[in-house]
């Protein structure tokens, strides 16, 4: 969904008359934190399943912190809300994201088989035993949208936030924005 948000941002920005060149001016502080966040999540999923209940919410928390530190950026508040929703739902479900089973079956029968017999990586079948189900994977994105997938409200908000950010960055010359962090910077194109 990360990619989807960015591509949608490109499209919207392009049609609003924005320029790809402006994307070079994007400055996000503490972006390197995304690496430990990724490592923690992968470690939890592949090597230490016992610590999954901690690893997944923790990685969401780190991403949330990155976005919080850059909260003045356009659209990041929406993205923060999205990550928070995911953080909350994985926290109360022992590090796993509840999946609406009928939709999972429609999406990928193989994955459905795995899920049905327990858990599948960080996913868990939605039932009376899972909590905050409405924040789970319930949005079945289908054609005409080109990328068929099953996502949660958090993913959706996160994508919208990214989309808003990217298209806005294409519109505005970020030179006059007061970011001013020397710790880390990254350019995205």
């Amino acid at each position, binding site marked *: 969904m990360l990619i989807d948000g960015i591509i949608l941002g490109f499209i919207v920005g392009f049609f609003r008359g924005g320029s790809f060149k402006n994307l070079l001016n994007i400055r996000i502080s503490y972006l390197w934190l995304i690496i430990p966040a990724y490592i923690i999540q992968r470690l939890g999923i592949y090597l230490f399943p016992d610590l999954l209940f901690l690893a997944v919410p923790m990685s969401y928390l780190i991403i949330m912190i990155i976005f919080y530190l850059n909260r003045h950026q356009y659209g990041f508040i929406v993205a923060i809300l999205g990550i928070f929703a995911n953080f909350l739902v994985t926290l109360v479900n022992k590090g796993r994201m509840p999946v609406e089973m009928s939709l999972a079956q429609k999406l990928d029968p193989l994955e459905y088989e795995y899920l049905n017999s327990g858990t599948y990586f960080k996913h868990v079948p939605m039932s009376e035993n899972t909590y905050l189900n409405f924040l*789970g994977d*319930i949005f079945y994105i289908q054609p005409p949208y080109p990328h068929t997938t099953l996502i949660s*409200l958090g993913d959706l908000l996160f994508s919208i936030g990214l989309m808003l950010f990217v298209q806005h960055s294409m519109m505005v010359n970020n030179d006059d924005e007061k970011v001013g962090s020397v710790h880390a910077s990254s350019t995205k194109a």
Partner: protein
Amino acid sequence: MMMRKLDRFMQVLPKHKFNIYIFLLGIAFFTLFFLEYQPITPKEWVFIFTFVGFSFLSDISSIPLPNGDYFTFLTSFLFVLTIMYGPTYLFMVVLLLVVCNYFYSKKLRVHLFNSFQISISAYLSLFVYESLGGVVGALDLANIKAILGFSAAFILFNSTFMTIYLSIIDNTPFLKQFQDLLLGNKEMVLIFGLMFLIGLIMAIMVEASGLVGLIMFSLLLLAITIMFRKYYEMFNHMNELANKDELTGLFNHRYFQTQLKQLINKNTKLSLLIIDIDYFKSYNDFYGHVEGDKILKLVSKIIDGYIGDKGTVCRYGGEEFSIILPNKDEHEAYEIAEGLRHKISNYHFDGQEILPEHQLTVSIGISSFPSIGHNKESLLMTADEALYKVKHTTRNNTFIYSSVVDKIEKEFNLKSEDIGVMRTLKVLLSSLNFKDRYTYGHTERDMEYAEALARKIGLTEEDIKFIRIGSLLHDIGKVEVPTEVLNKKGKLTDDEWAILKNHTIWGEQIIKPIEFLTPILPMIRNHHERYDGRGYPDQLAGENIHLWARILTIVDSYDAMTSNRSYRKRKTVEEAILELNHEAGKQFDPYLVDKFIEVICEKEDVHKNTYDLLVLGQQEVAVTCEEINKEKAL
């Protein structure tokens, strides 16, 4: 103490009342929510979230209307929600809407109130819908009765909740507010009707193709909203172009006229300032128009910043600005004008050194409605006259229009037919004023000086009365002189001279039929005679010239020397005194000259010593006697 406490209590009360009102609505909301709650499946959550997203978007992107109101498609979304999905959806969506709105713009109380009242209204309307045979979730277009019933009930409940809110905020009776809101605002009912119609189409879409239908239709609505807003921006832009001055960004002449007309038609008390930048032409000539435009912009900014929301600032034209100050009398306006004038003269403008006073200044004329001008034309004319009075005397000053004619009317205790005559003379005087801008302040100052001189030589009050009116009217014959001759910059031809000289005789003829003014006839006829007998029209000499006329000759010349004329700068008092002294016995009665110099020395605070020094020292005077004579003749 007691009273103050009570006052404060009363002030806080509406706010408290509003809080209590929201609290009660909140209790109702959550009670209903709890009673009606049905478990929501994950798939239903998808619908709810989609609804929240789109109704939030439509809520924040309101469509403005030219009359200042605006509307949103939120009502349409609520209609679909209630009719198609029932109360649980409605309450949940509205609750999440508060959260979204709170993140978007903090005003929590307002969002809570809106969400509570709108959802309770929809919930109550649902009863009407069901009692008329409507079924939640099954749209039946044949049952138009139920749909109309729902809409009418919703408008009614919504208006009721809003009225309670308004009567709490404004502390006005409920029924009056209700009437204003519902009956005085037929457009609102129309817009609501439109919203329900759109809601109905959305419901059909949702029934036909579910979530996809909802998304498609919502996107369409959003596109329409964006388009409308763009059009509105364009409308606003055009509006501004029509009403604003391109260079300064102030309102333009057209807007000024309409605004003034509207206010006067409404009989609003107001004051009018007309502001003119002094010596702006010199600045423009010296630095060019590009720099001149910069100064205009800067001055506009200062004026606009100083006036703020006290009034409307317009560019009247060229380097002239006009300010309408509603609900201010001329004295309040004077305070404001003086503050503004000081602000501008204290401001450092680039290149102001080349101006005669080495600083950029403004002259301001003030008039008021209805105390001075009785209609738009006379208001503008009087403010204009006051401005020109400043222009021809000191510049960098503020004058309130005052009419000497009105004062004289009081002094003479006139009979009613004579009042009519005076009015006519007043018109003649102001038409003369438009022919020859210089006359206005000039005659008034003549009056003051003549009066002072007459007192000095011990004339009676009765005489002084006539001398005053004589000074005022002495140039009235100039109305017959063509404007080209009056305002000619170069040398006059002999023919033109002959015409100009005739103004003394024409003046006498104009005044002759007015019985009570007979005593001033010699003053008007003979104020251009010379003591040595070389004047016009009768070549009288010495004591043969009427005393009043001799007085007038001196004060008139003195004022001519010390006023600003377009072709030369005024003389200082000292220079003028020297000149008078030089002409004593030639043009002027020497005795009167002596007395008049005393008058000036008292009035203008010049020490007799200075004067003596000047005379004894035989200082060179810039302007020669001949020039003064020419001046005088003009």
